[in-house]
């Protein structure tokens, strides 16, 4: 009996993950800097100002080239050496923990560290390449985390400081939330994600800690459809939108209040393809014809903490969030939605033909 319990504990132990407590080197995401810049801003704000942690945001950090690697125009040796340069920058900053904003990058860093473990000669070759190209040297990180791992780690501290809960302001009932986890978070290396590929907790843990209800649905683990070359080339985009369509159709019967994602591309595609599908087929997957809002975990954490929605960047989502904000009882000033930093009104964006605002 004791042996059986011990084995079960060991089994579940493989679904756990150690995440460093403090002192992170921040590796930004190309897609998020373009489409969700306020999410990265909020990550730094929450870590530094709310939780009192040290995070280094390095101007010398560059793309990891991951989108090029997964569309096969960047060789494996090249991306290994670019990632090694990031480790060198981390080492030079006196840090040992790397916090990675992008799920594609997280998968790549993980793949490279696994490769170096299985093929030590690849690590030595990469050290030579990096020194030859940049004269830089590096230590391996002691801890590698996706930034959603870090928000998950501190979800209870965030809950203690929360101004809002994920409940309907009128009824007190928990909101129905579906989560979508980027494929490269744990499908490639399940032991590197919280809960692995089968029972991922990284987003559902946040949702329940902040008062919401996680809704299961059949295509919960299906890819969002980015598919790298299948989006990058216009002729292939039917692949991308078809996969998102499949997910949305699968979740529709469960009436989600919003979708929570931890992957840059997923957040962007599930938001933007809803617009495309509405324009192409006059179809939305909610009851009001407005689409289902898609949030990043930093946007959600910031809203829960009482930060104003337009500081969080919700105005640059194609699916508008006012219905969700109303449900949560979060006040917002429509007059401040489309202003610049100084408060000057900007020209308004055009409205979609079919997607209601």
């Amino acid at each position: 009996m004791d042996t059986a319990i011990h084995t079960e504990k060991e089994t579940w132990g493989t679904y756990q993950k150690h995440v460093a407590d403090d002192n992170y080197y921040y590796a930004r995401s190309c897609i998020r800097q373009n489409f969700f810049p306020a999410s990265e801003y909020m990550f730094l704000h929450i870590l530094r100002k709310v939780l009192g942690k040290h995070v280094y945001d390095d101007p010398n950090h560059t793309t990891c080239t991951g989108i090029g690697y997964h569309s096969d125009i960047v060789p494996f040796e090249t991306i290994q050496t670019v990632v090694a340069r990031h480790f060198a920058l981390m080492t030079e900053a006196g840090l040992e923990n790397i916090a990675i904003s992008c799920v594609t990058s997280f998968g790549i860093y993980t793949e490279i560290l696994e490769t170096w473990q299985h093929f030590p000669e690849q690590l030595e070759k990469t050290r030579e390449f990096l020194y030859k190209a940049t004269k830089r040297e590096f230590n391996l990180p002691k801890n590698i985390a996706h930034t959603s791992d870090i928000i998950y780690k501190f979800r209870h501290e965030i809950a203690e400081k929360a101004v809002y809960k994920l409940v309907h302001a009128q009824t007190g009932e928990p909101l129905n939330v579906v989560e979508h986890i980027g494929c490269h978070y744990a499908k490639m290396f399940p032991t590197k994600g919280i809960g692995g590929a089968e029972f991922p907790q990284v987003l559902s843990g946040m949702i329940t800690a902040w008062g919401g209800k996680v809704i299961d649905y059949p295509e919960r683990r299906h890819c969002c459809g980015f598919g790298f070359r299948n989006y990058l080339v216009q002729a292939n985009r039917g692949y991308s939108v078809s996969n998102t369509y499949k997910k949305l159709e699968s979740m529709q019967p469960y009436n989600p209040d919003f979708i929570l994602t931890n992957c840059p591309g997923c957040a962007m595609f599930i938001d933007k393809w809803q617009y495309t599908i509405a324009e192409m087929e006059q179809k939305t997957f909610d009851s009001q014809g407005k689409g289902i809002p898609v949030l990043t975990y930093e946007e959600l954490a910031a809203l829960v903490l009482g930060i104003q929605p337009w500081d969080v960047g919700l105005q640059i989502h194609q699916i508008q969030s006012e219905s969700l904000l109303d449900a949560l009882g979060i006040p917002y000033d429509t007059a401040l939605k489309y202003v610049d930093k100084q408060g000057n009104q900007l020209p308004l964006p055009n409205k979609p033909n079919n997607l209601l605002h």
Partner: protein
Amino acid sequence: MDIDFCAELEQDVRFKEGLKACMNCGICTAICPAAELYNYDPRSIITSVQLRNNLQIKELLQSETIWYCGQCMSCKTRCPRGNTPGFIIQTLRKLSQKYGYFTHSEKGRQQYAIKKTVGENVLKKGYCVHPDLVSYDMHQEQGPIWQWVQQHKQAIYERLGANLDKEGAGALRKIHKKNLDELQAIFDVTNGTELYTIIEEESKKQAERMNLGFSDNIDNEYFKHVYTYNSNTHSE
């Protein structure tokens, strides 16, 4: 002299990691988003590779089929033997480009469009994706909000805490020339630059064969063709 493609594949660590012993169960095809949409069967590709059939591998390198995979890597999670068909696809695409076979297929020829956009952006800007790259004209599926961001990007990115094209830290900061020079040096010593050159030269030859205009920038007939053309024969 015939090229020993099998020997070349076996030199790639991703091939060693990706193919242990396939038992042809087909779960990779069952889980694959590309197999659902395209005439694509990762199981049969792995079979050809596992048989070490040099002729079949050469046919794969010239085919449409190796270009359908979206590299979601769902196959890695599900394979009961620990294989990763997605890794094998990466190694096949590497060889297809090395030997210029990628221009034999409609989907393979698209590598030129990816090199001209994402590839050149990496070395010019230090980002795979940048607001200047994701133009509304080429990405109308991004909708009117993205069009609005494009029209007022300085003001909007500043409002949202970014540091667009400016010195210092922050989202979308200008990547300093010394960092771009390091990226270029890394590409030079690791054959990244060589791959870009192969894609460019083989595409130029293909453009001549197809009687399509070709130039250094993306404003040419061949780019427009490979970026937009879909024969709609991929699901038959």
